[in-house]
C-alpha cells in the first residue's frame, strides 16, 4: 500500500553510492516520532499561543457594516494582496488593465506549475543552479518592493 520512503533497503556499509542513489537517503536521519513530531508540536504551540495572544491584543477587525453608497471609505486590500494591488498601478488604461490584472498573474501561475519541468538539472543546491535561484530571488524582491510601495502609497494618501 505505502511505498517505502527514502530507501532504507540496504545497510550503509554495503551500499555503493552512485549518481542514481546518492539522494536516496540523507546522511543522518532521526525517527519521525518522537523528535520531528516534537519539533512540529513546538512550532504549532507557538503559533497557537501567538494566535490567542493576538486575538486579545489586536482582535480580528470588524469595521462599520457594509455601505455600498459610501464616498468617504478608502478600500484597501489585506496585506497579502498589497503587492498585487500595487502591480495594478503599473497597468493603466483600457488596453493594459486586463493584461496586468489577469493575464500576467495567470502566466505566472502557469510558470509556477511548470517549475519542476523548467528546472530539470541534476543540481539541488541553490548555489549550483544560479538561474533558478536568481529568478526566485527576483520574484521575492519584486513582491517585497511592491508591498513597500503599496504601504508608502497608502500612508501618503491625501486625507488619511
Amino acid at each position, binding site marked *: 500500500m505505502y511505498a517505502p520512503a527514502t530507501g532504507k533497503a540496504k545497510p550503509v556499509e554495503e551500499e555503493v553510492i552512485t549518481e542514481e542513489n546518492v539522494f536516496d537517503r540523507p546522511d543522518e536521519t532521526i525517527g519521525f516520532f518522537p523528535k520531528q513530531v516534537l519539533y512540529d508540536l513546538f512550532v504549532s504551540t507557538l503559533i497557537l499561543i501567538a494566535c490567542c495572544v493576538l486575538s486579545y491584543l489586536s482582535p480580528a477587525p470588524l469595521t462599520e457594516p457594509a*455601505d*455600498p*453608497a*459610501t*464616498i*468617504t*471609505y*478608502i*478600500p484597501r486590500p489585506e496585506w497579502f494582496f498589497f503587492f498585487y*494591488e500595487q502591480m*495594478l*498601478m503599473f*497597468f*493603466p*488604461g*483600457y*488596453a493594459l*488593465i486586463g493584461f496586468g490584472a489577469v493575464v500576467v498573474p495567470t502566466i505566472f501561475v502557469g510558470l509556477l506549475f511548470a517549475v519542476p519541468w523548467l528546472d530539470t538539472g541534476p543540481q539541488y543546491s541553490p548555489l549550483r543552479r544560479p538561474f533558478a535561484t536568481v529568478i526566485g530571488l527576483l520574484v521575492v524582491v519584486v513582491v517585497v518592493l511592491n508591498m513597500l510601495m503599496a504601504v508608502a502609497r497608502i500612508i501618503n*494618501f*491625501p*486625507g488619511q
Partner: protein
Amino acid sequence: MAELQKDPMTRGDFLGFGILGTIVGAILTIPPAAFVLAPIIDVDILGKSDVPEGPDDWFEVGPIAEITEEEPKFFKVDFPVEQIYAEPKVQEESGISKEEFVVESALWVSWRTEILGDGTYGQSYRPSFLDNYDGGTLTEEQVQEAQENLNVLSSSCAHLGCPVRWILREGEGELLCPCHGGIYNINGEYVAGPPPRDLYRYTHEVREDGKLYVRHEFDVGGENGPQEPYVI
C-alpha cells in the same frame, strides 16, 4: 493478499458503462451546473437584471436646485434589488421579513462645465432660472435645459469600482479615486491615472417638479467600445 482477478471487459460491459455513465453523469452535471451558473444564464444570455430596468422604473434622486455651480453634489439612491430571497415575490408570500432589500448607490451630480485648454474650469452651464427658483412647476424648455446640462455620475470608479470623492487641489476640484489615484474632472471625464474611461453616467430625467430621476442604466459606450460597470 488475493490475486487481482482481471476479467476481460465484454461488449455488453462496455455498453453498460457507457449508458449508465451517461445517465448518472448527465443528471449530476447539467442540473447542478444550471443551478450554480444561474446568474450567467440570466444576465449574460437572457439579459435579465436584478434591478428593475424597465422604461417606467424611475427613481427619485433629489431637487436640482440644490446642485451648485462649483462642485458636484452627492446623492444617494436606493434601487430595489430582486435577488434570490430578496425577490419581492418571495418576500411578499413569506410575509416574514420586514426589511426592504435595496442596492444603495452613490451619485455625483454636477452641472456641465466648460473645460479650458489647461484643464481648469471655465463657465458653468447651470441654468439661470434656478438662481431664484421657488419650487414651482418648470416649463418644458426649462426641463430640457436642465436635463441637457446635468452630469449624473456613478460614484463607482471606472477602474476597479472604488467610491470616488470630491477633493480640492490647488483651488481646482476633481473627483479622485482613493484606490489607485484615478482622477476625473467635474464632468466625470477621465483626466489621469489608471481608469480606462470616464465615470459611468446614469440615464436621467428632470421633471416638472424640479427633481432629478434616474434609471438603473448606464452609458456603457466609450472610446474603446462598450464596457459594463458591473458592480453598481
